[in-house]
């Protein structure tokens, strides 16, 4: 399994460094800011975007769920990294690196876990936008491998943690519904929710 993962990484990364245009684009898309900010902005748009009160409430609960999912995903990644450390690809292979050299564990991908949690929140609120968000996360994951920062299994691990964290967040949000409703009520008084 690890061998297949490494071979797949080497094959995908072998396409890097061939075209400066593709490399520059990849270095933007794999950045720590691009996709996380875009998905967060999508959630901001959803907060204002529903046209009926019922849909608005649903969207706003999904925004809470997405950010709680992101926090749980980060916590899970930190816990896994506490007991398991995997070297980055550039530590063990000849790599065309389009990014800085991160010092934290390669598995699971924290960036992918976080963006997957955000995409899950978008998907629960709006299936069409959610599907686009998941495609964006897959592109993000592919580019992180292409850029030499992660192995493919790190991306899969990040995806799974993101999805599981959102499921946990969904359960917690259901449990905390009276509190969430109070927060939204205060938001309504301030004309913010």
């Amino acid at each position, binding site marked *: 399994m690890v061998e297949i993962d490494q071979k797949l990484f080497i094959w995908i990364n072998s396409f890097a460094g061939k075209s400066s245009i593709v490399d520059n684009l990849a*270095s933007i898309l794999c*950045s*720590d800011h691009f996709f*996380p900010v875009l998905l967060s902005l999508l959630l901001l748009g959803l907060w*204002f975007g529903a*046209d009926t009160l019922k849909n*608005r409430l649903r969207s706003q609960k999904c925004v809470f769920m997405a950010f709680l999912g992101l926090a749980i995903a980060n916590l899970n990644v930190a816990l896994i990294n506490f007991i398991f450390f995997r070297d980055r690809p550039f530590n063990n292979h000849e790599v065309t690196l389009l990014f800085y050299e991160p010092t934290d564990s390669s598995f699971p991908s924290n960036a992918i876990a976080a963006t997957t949690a955000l995409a899950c929140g978008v998907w629960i609120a709006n299936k069409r936008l959610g599907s686009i968000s998941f495609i964006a996360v897959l592109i993000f994951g592919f580019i992180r491998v292409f850029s030499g920062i992660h192995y493919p299994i790190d991306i899969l691990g990040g995806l799974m943690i993101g999805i599981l964290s959102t499921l946990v967040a969904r359960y917690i949000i259901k449990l905390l519904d009276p509190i969430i409703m109070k927060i939204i009520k205060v938001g309504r008084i301030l004309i913010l929710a």
Partner: protein
Amino acid sequence: MLPLAADYFIFVFISAIGAIQVGASYGKLKGIFFFPSIIISRLVGGLSVLIGIVWFYATKHRNINDTEGGIDANDQALWFFLGVTAALIFTFVITSISHKKLSGKSQINFELGIQNLKHSTYFFAIKNNIIFRTKKWWK
């Protein structure tokens, strides 16, 4: 030269203004439109997001490790929150000043929250909310 965190704040601020406009256009929240047309609001909103991204990535190299002057995840979350808050304040102030025609023409239902922005500006809605609650409190 601004540090990365300040640039990130500006990037989020510009893009969030756009995201709010796009969201408001789908929610038909005319009270926070910069432009009267839904389509123009949507286009300008999308353009604003694009301008934020292009400005942030075209002006400098942004892939910097947080141990070498980059911003870590916690700071990213903080600056994102501050950028969005600034964008909301900017949107509410500008649209409340520019849409005076919307003020005073509608009834405010405080249970509806931002649904009120379909017919009134933010300042009008919040001002009437404070007056309503103060009167209710004195009774």
